């Protein structure tokens, strides 16, 4: 009886986990700007990871595999948000500097068209900047 309950439960967890993975993936591709995309990607880092690995955990029973699964779960739950934090921080710092992402998002709301435009702008800004800095480098080396 208990085994069947666990089996069904792991089935449900894995399927729902798969659903959340998919949702996060679609969000990361479709959402209009960087911060929203990061939000979507974080879903796969937290709830989906938890559900998928939890489902496997119920399958594994009590073996050495359980310990490893718990270790993976803990490490992913630790590193995922940390990487997201560092990434958001880096993006925010450089975003403030290039004045692209934030200004438009505050100004126009998050219409998809506007968002796309913003990111394109940002990219051209960045590429101009890097090419300029490269010229600097060359000058310096001369």
């Amino acid at each position, binding site marked *: 009886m208990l085994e069947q309950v666990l089996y069904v439960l792991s089935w449900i967890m894995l399927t729902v986990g798969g659903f959340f993975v998919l949702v996060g993936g679609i969000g990361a591709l479709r959402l209009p700007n960087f911060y929203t995309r990061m939000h979507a990607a974080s879903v796969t880092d937290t709830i989906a990871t938890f559900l998928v690995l939890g489902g496997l955990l119920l399958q594994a029973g009590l073996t050495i595999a359980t310990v490893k699964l718990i270790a993976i779960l803990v*490490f992913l739950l630790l590193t995922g948000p940390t990487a997201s934090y*560092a990434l958001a921080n880096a993006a925010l710092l450089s975003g403030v500097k290039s004045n692209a992402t934030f200004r438009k998002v505050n100004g126009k709301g998050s219409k998809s068209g506007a968002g796309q435009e913003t990111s394109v702008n940002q990219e051209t800004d960045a*590429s101009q900047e890097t*090419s300029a800095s*490269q010229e600097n480098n060359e000058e*310096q*080396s001369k």
Partner: protein
Amino acid sequence: MIIIFAVFLLTLLVITAIAIVRAENLFVAVMLMAIFSLLMAANFFILDAADVALTEAAIGAGVTTVIFLGALSLTAENEKKVELSRGVAMSIVTATTLLLIYATFEKPKLGDPEAPVHQHVAPWYLSETPKLIDIPNVVTAVLGSFRAYDTLGEVFVVFTACIGVLFLLSAKNPADKQSRRTPPESIGLRHHLIPKVVGRLLFPFIVLFGLYVQFHGEYGPGGGFQAGAIIATGIILFALLEGEKTALAAVPHSVMMAMVAGGALLYTMVGVVTMFMGGNFLDYSVLSSNPVFGQQMGIILIEAGVGITVCGALLAIFHAFAARENY
């Protein structure tokens, strides 16, 4: 079912490879290289090569990316745009691809048990390992004992490459006296509390996991090469979060050099000792009165040597690139 996964992953692999070659920003290309390596590892795993997948996992995502980034920060980030005459190259490449694909129809299919490669020594390795060495992981047995000579050569290649990198990068740059500023201490992850705390938390676990891979290599996927890379990655994490100087204080250059040379020396010495004890070079059976136990002892010793050398070499290479920036 698995073959569909493999086809899917391989298609992604081709797309990634083409994107790497087309990317004009080298930074982007290096990041796509990380994805490429992840895909390779997943493919290796699906094709039953757990040890190889672990090696690719330990090396591809961490060390390779870090070394490429180190080199990028010393050179240019963008590729120069030039008009290239691509026609000839493109036709050569296409013709060769088609020829290679044509040639594959002569090859045995994926998973064919009758393929010539499965008829030669492989069945012998699989059937004799439990009797002669008695460890479950046949890959480790072949690596450490049956083909130990080959592995010794590979260890010395790593050793030589490390020495070469150090020779090339330790010389001071004559043209570049004061132009490079020392990087200001106020930047980077060092001053972000959250990555630092999490990194400090993870660092011991990475090293512990490396040691597990090292000593569990006889029973599961793992061994000296993987363990060395994982521990080196852990110390690289430490260097990223605490700064170069702290990392160098923890593992100074002299220790790294001692590791690089000492590991290779340990490996060779095991071979020499077996010669003195009356066996052939790297024939561990003579190390103990029980030949099977002698084999196991020999494998543990040489795996330790491999791990120490790989860890030291990768760390020395990382520090050579990182220290170059500070001129």
